[in-house]
């Protein structure tokens, strides 16, 4: 796997959500929900379909406004930069954020520039994610699993301390899942934090895992 820039993250970096409440029309998705995730920890969000898992992740990412409550990173907003200029957080939703007109390389180069990942290392990263052969193909022709891998490569490039992943295993084959798990284990071992919406089991190695169960047990 390509080398991550810089060392581990600080021990005090703590993600907290307090009193989050959100209604969608007449439905209460969550009411006074609180959680926290320490560095090196993974927070798994589980629950039946329609229980608000994705919405919660989007609230953490700042994409959706909660009606009440707030999400903080060490008491500051989650969208921001740390002292060394790396982004605090990266979000990976269902959509892969790839432009079908651009090649895999061009797509990743854009995000590399935004997050300050060295352009030279993208090639290495493509090899690690099993996309080396697709580097110069427009992402229009990629399979769903390959697009997912490219999206995960983008997550890795961000160098962010907090990863927010929405069902990252979708469409991945076993090699792809191994890539994902290796990436996550390394991230958590380096005192990173991850919040993951997952239906399937996911092997996070030795990292402590907290499960957040959403919705009434169906």
């Amino acid at each position, binding site marked *: 796997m390509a080398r991550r820039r810089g060392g581990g993250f600080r021990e005090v970096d703590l993600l907290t959500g307090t009193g989050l409440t959100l*209604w*969608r*029309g*007449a439905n*209460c998705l969550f009411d006074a929900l609180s959680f926290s995730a320490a560095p090196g920890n993974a927070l798994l969000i589980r629950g039946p379909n329609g229980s608000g898992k994705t919405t919660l992740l989007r609230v953490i990412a700042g994409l959706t*406004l909660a009606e009440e409550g707030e999400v903080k990173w060490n008491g500051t907003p989650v969208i921001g930069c740390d002292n060394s200029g790396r982004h605090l957080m990266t979000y990976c939703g269902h959509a892969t954020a790839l432009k079908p007109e651009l090649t895999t390389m061009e797509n990743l180069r854009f995000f590399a520039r935004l997050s300050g990942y060295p352009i030279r290392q993208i090639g290495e990263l493509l090899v690690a994610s099993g996309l080396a052969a697709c580097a110069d193909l427009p992402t229009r022709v990629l399979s769903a699993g390959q697009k997912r891998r490219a999206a995960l490569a983008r997550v890795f490039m961000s160098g962010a301390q907090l990863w927010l992943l929405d069902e990252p295993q979708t469409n991945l084959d076993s090699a792809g899942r191994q890539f994902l798990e290796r990436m996550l284990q390394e991230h958590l071992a380096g005192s990173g934090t991850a919040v993951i919406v997952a239906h399937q089991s996911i092997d996070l190695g030795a990292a402590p895992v907290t499960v957040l169960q959403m919705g009434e047990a169906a």
Partner: protein
Amino acid sequence: MWTWFFQLASPPHFYRMAGSLVPWLLWPALLLIVIGSWGGLVQAPADYQQGDGYRIIYVHVPSSYLSMMVYVTMAVAAGIGLIWRIKLAHAVAASCAPIGATFTAAALVTGMLWGKPMWGTYWQWEPRLTSELILLFLYFGYMSLRSAFNDLNQSDRASAVLALAGVVNVPIIHFSVLWWAGLHQGPSISKIDAPSIAFDMLWPLLVMILGFTLFFLGVLAMRVRGEVLEREFHSRWAQDVLRGASPMEAG
């Protein structure tokens, strides 16, 4: 001052207060409009140039004044709702639009009826009528954007941005229409609000404007109650009101 403000802005309190306020706004409004109409149609003397035709201003000017005033109210409420995330403000903005649109239409039609005897045609591309027409389109745009969203919260915030963009544009539109019309030297309605207007002619106009304003506030209060109820549906007080189990239900 602030406690009073927050109490007013608390939805259950507003819902109750607005309910009891409605008759206190609408009955005086009706009275003033009747007095103003009597004053305008009977009491005021005929204009030496326009004869009795000018009496249309007693309905045209209040309508056109409301059409602008309601738009500004809507934009201010929308801005408050957007910045401080106050649902009541969004409810006010949402309620303003249909009222404002109807008064804009009224101002347009009465303006045209005034124009026919004055210009010999129902429509002149003169600044006032043109501005009213554009204002009507602004209301239509706002209302169709509102109805395009399924989620009320999203609809509130999106339409608020549009209302703010619109209100910044209203003076720009107004002045560019004035500038544009000045090039063509078209006839203008503005002669009739010259300061030299006689008191006999003026007081019914002022009474009508006041009556229309109270009427707007009364209708607004009624509409906002419904909108507030909808936005507060999941709260205890709203459900009590809906079950009829609340003493808040007044009218």
